[in-house]
């Protein structure tokens, strides 16, 4: 359903600097419906940049991002809007994921308001109803982000992203700031959602154990390139690329 063809993205340091950093180099892969695709790689290898390109936050230099055979990277702001409802994203840092000056409820109402899905009152009603599913309680609605825990914020962010009923969810290290228990909560929740809403996920992380545990397909990224791509099983049981081998080995040895 999502297909990347030779996507390249680079940053200049603005004029008159001539240096360019290319965090994403000719990346091609596909994400399949209702499957979880894991993206692993060292920090700084371009994972977040790739995620921002897919969600249209940043224009790409070359290549194509196709969503159901529509080239997203050619769309204008207005034409993007319908796809906004289909592709959503959750960010890495819980501490900046929500506007710190707004109560949680305000942040949750935002998608309804922006897409005029439901009138205010019904939106609030709907939010209240879905809280339990995400393991949240009502009192949280009237707090500010800094008054709730990181795990809760990530769940609120997830709730907000899912309230548009997207088809594809991009998760950029959503659990890297959380402890194992909360991480497990989050993962459980995601799996539940995937079943219930028939969601496809692109899950970005550098925690190989985590990726191995949850994804159907794994992409290994290094310095802006996809080194290897394949089903979780095949990647970890018979890696081809030496780098992948190293990683798989570390898992097998049981060390890290």
């Amino acid at each position, binding site marked *: 359903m999502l297909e990347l063809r030779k996507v390249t993205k680079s940053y200049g*340091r603005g004029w*008159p*600097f001539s240096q360019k950093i290319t965090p994403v180099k000719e990346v091609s892969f596909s994400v399949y419906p209702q499957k979880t695709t894991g993206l692993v790689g060292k920090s700084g290898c371009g994972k977040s940049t790739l995620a921002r390109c897919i969600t249209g936050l940043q224009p790409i230099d070359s290549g194509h991002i196709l969503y159901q055979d529509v080239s997203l990277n050619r769309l204008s702001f207005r034409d993007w809007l319908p796809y906004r409802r289909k592709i959503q994203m959750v960010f890495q840092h819980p501490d900046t994921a929500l506007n710190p000056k707004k109560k949680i409820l305000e942040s949750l109402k935002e998608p309804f308001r922006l897409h005029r899905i439901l009138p205010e009152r019904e939106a609030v009603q709907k939010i209240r109803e879905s809280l339990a599913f995400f393991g949240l309680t009502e009192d949280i609605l009237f707090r500010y982000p800094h008054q709730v825990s990181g795990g809760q914020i990530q769940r609120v962010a997830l709730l907000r992203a899912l309230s548009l009923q997207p088809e594809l969810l991009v998760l950029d290290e959503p659990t890297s700031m959380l402890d194992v228990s909360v991480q497990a909560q989050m993962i459980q929740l995601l799996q539940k959602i995937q079943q219930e809403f028939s969601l496809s996920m692109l899950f970005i992380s550098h925690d190989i154990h985590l990726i191995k545990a949850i994804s159907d397909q794994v992409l290994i990224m290094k310095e802006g390139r996809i080194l290897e791509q394949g089903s979780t099983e095949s990647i970890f049981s018979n890696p081809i690329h030496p780098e992948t081998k190293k990683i798989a080995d570390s898992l097998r040895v049981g060390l890290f």
Partner: protein
Amino acid sequence: MTYALPYALKKIILALPVLIGVSVIAFLLGVVALGDPAREALSADGVSTPTQEEIDVKRRELGLDQSLGKQYQQWIGGILQGDLGTSFMTNIPIAEEFRDRLPKTVALSISALLLVIFLSIPLAVLMAVYQHSWFDHIGRLFSLLLISTPGFLAAILLMMFFSVHLRWLPTSGYGTFSHLIIPSLVLAFGTSGVIMRVNRATLLEVLNKNYILNAHAKGLTNPFVLYRHALRNSLLPVITLIGNYFGGILGGSAIVETIFAIPGVGRYAVEGIMSMDYPVIQAYVLFTGVVYVLFNLLIDLSYIIIDPRIRLGGDQG
């Protein structure tokens, strides 16, 4: 160093249009103000009233009958050759006046700047270190007092106290270091108040940083941590601010120079403005504009030294 050069280049290139803009506005400011410079030149003595013919002759003589574009061309052409024009009122070349006066204004501004730095930064440090103490509260009020006292009032009060009452310092004039003390204090006051508050805030922010905690964990002494780790980092934003305020100090020197009888460019400008001596106004506006731009360029460039991220291409593009 590979990043320093393009950075510097960019700053310098961006300064150019600013300089051009400044020169255009400087020129226009002189022209736009009401009053006829020719008439003013002829009534400089305060007793004569020139006739219309006399005024017309003078206008032609001063080149005021030409189109604005042409006047600007001539003006800027002269400036580029180091000729700032001649005062309509005194017939003294402006460049000559500037040569006489500039050192005085510069001395005044620099000493005010130093005072700002040595007055506000230590106080800000003490306030931040003893946050919520009496010292902090009094310091806060003091900074507000500095911000909200009109300069002329401060000038008169300081003069009455230090010169007339205590006789420690001369009331006015220019010559020795002691002549500069009160004027630069007055000039420094408002800015110091702001810098105090800002520096206190930035320092508090820095003191909450992890690397400060780490420095303590290393067993370093408090003053050392403060000096080596906190102060320098907290000064980065303050330096930019000081750059911004330098313009204010330069501009504010006009009134201070008049009060304290320091024959600097500021007073020259006030006299020029009062008598519609527009070559003088233009030269002054251009001068302060250029000094400001250059000073800020200097500050921008100084970041190459102060902030390694700029020099070596960190994430500050």
